[in-house]
């Protein structure tokens, strides 16, 4: 597949030297997505008629200034928010008419999250945090332990498995969050400003780790970021300004 790709109505770039080996079928198809918030008597249009397709295996950056609608689009693609109009298909499944519980189960099955503030559970150890999505899904203990061991090894935190999040550095916490997002090998990982709270070197390491694990696990990444270092490492960059794709 050609490294430069035009997809749907979004302006999409492919970075030089980054092979999009895993780009195959459509994973996300957002069609005419708009989102309007009501703030008191005012209506704020966060997204205007956004149509975007993300293919399986892509490592995509979603760029734009603050208030451009990056997080809103990310939330809709991550099925934690619903568009005011338009549809969002995940793996060809139309999510528009799904109930809250159905969306939760689909999210559990196919989507992992990495948050800017890590959002780890403070009372749980590293290992328990990573295991949490498996616990929620009712994965048997033995299978769960194997999966957790493997992913902790891959993020280099095997020796810190029993530490609690407050005993870790920012970079280590984000690695725990990445391990948690990937432990069930989802189809898609949504990352909202994953490097915003990290220093330069750590941010680079984190983004390299995400890219490496994304490839090894065949996972698609959709990352909202301002960080040029992140953008440099992405297969594609999608720009949003004032809720519209550029």
């Amino acid at each position, binding site marked *: 597949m050609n490294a430069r790709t035009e997809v749907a109505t979004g302006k999409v770039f492919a970075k030089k030297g980054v092979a999009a080996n895993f780009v195959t079928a459509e994973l996300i198809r957002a069609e005419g997505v708009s989102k309007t918030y009501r703030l008191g008597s005012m209506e704020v249009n966060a997204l205007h008629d956004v149509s975007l397709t993300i293919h399986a295996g892509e490592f995509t950056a979603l760029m734009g200034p603050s208030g451009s609608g990056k997080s809103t689009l990310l*939330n809709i693609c*991550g099925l*934690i*928010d619903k568009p005011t109009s338009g549809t969002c298909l995940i793996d060809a499944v139309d999510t528009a008419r799904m109930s*809250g*519980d159905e969306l*939760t*189960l689909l*999210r*559990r*099955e196919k989507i*992992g*999250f990495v*948050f800017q503030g890590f*959002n780890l*559970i*403070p*009372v*749980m150890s590293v290992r*328990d945090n990573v295991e*949490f*999505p498996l*616990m*929620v*899904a009712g994965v048997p203990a033995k299978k769960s332990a194997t999966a957790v061991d493997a992913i902790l090894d891959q993020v280099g935190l095997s020796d810190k498995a029993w530490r609690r999040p407050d005993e870790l550095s920012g970079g280590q916490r984000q690695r725990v969050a990445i391990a*948690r997002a990937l432990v069930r090998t989802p189809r898609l990982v949504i990352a909202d400003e994953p490097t915003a709270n990290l220093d330069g070197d750590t941010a680079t390491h984190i983004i390299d780790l995400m890219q490496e694990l994304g490839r090894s696990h065949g996972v698609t990444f959709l990352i909202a970021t301002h960080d040029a270092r992140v953008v440099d490492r992405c297969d594609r960059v999608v720009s949003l300004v004032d809720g519209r794709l550029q």
Partner: protein
Amino acid sequence: MKWLLFAFKNVLRNRRRSLITVAISAIGTAGILIGGGFALFTYESLRELAARDSGHLVIAHKDFFDRDEDTPMQYGLDDFEFMKKKIEADPRVRMALPRVQLSGLVSNGDKSAVFVGVGVDPDGEFSVKGPTVKVLAGSLLESGPSSDPAPGILLGSELARMMKAEPGSGLTLLSSTTSGSLNAIDVKVRGVITMGVPEVDKRLVFTDLATAQKLLLTDKVSTLSVYLHETEDTDTMRDTAAGLFPERALQTWRDQAFYYLAVKGLYNRIFGLLGVVIVTMVLFAVSNTLAMAVMERTREIGTLRALGTLPHQIVRVFALEGFILGIAGIAAGMLFAIGTSVLFMVADLQMPPPPGRSVGYPLHVNVSPELYLTTALTVVALSIGAAWFISRKASRKPIVEALAHV
């Protein structure tokens, strides 16, 4: 198990707050258990007192309880010996005691006073009455022939004081007979007793059955009191006795225990209200703690929901936290209540005499498995219910809103 562990860790997040909640639950639980245990002890004591006084069952002539007699023993039992033998054959029966009720005047030669007396089988009667009859002077009556030609009586302490009588004093009992005439009999005071109720002690006379019958000129008795080995057998024994003596009237100790029923009714209201207040207090304490926990963890709830946790799984975590707080409070409260019960028992503390009585009673607190179980289930159910109610809304909050919560 992992959910329970997660909930346990959550409870320990704010240890001071959880500790205060557990302490409030514990104090509340202990309050219910100690108050309820005291009420149960009181009921048990009064029940025992009532049963010792009247017998578990009272068998009488069919009109005895409903109609007033025109002459003494009009509604008496003449076949009581046969009935006694028949009912004592039942293994549930400890003994059946005939009684003759009489009233009249007691005189010391200078002064007379009204008495209300009972003719009894002394050995049987005073063995079932046990500590409810307290001998202040002299001794109890005994069955069988006596060396003293004058029949013996026991006098209530107040009546003895009025008659200036003491053991060995001679008195005369005067009463109406079954034929309507008056009869008198000289008696000798064997002992001065108290039943713990001054009003009773002012009128009370105990004598043996034969003396009472001789005074009334009758061979009947008023009632046959049936004492059982177990109070719990009262109702079944009542049915049996009703089958054995269909022509007779039957009452259980409950029918005669007006004081017991009045106290039980009063205590049920007092301790019931106290229980409701305490349970409400525990409910508010647990609710407040969990409401604060939900508020503080709204962002985390959003994260858990984003990670695929269903709303009912979120509610379950909080319900488990409520369960843990409830169980911890109950365990501590139970230990405290049991400790208090043991302490009261060992210290032998006494309660002051209740209204209308002249003797106090021991301050004991019963440890009742039923009360403990009911209290535990109530506190746990309320804790879980409060957690469910509080977390239900938060678990349904839009994830984006929850994640943005500060």
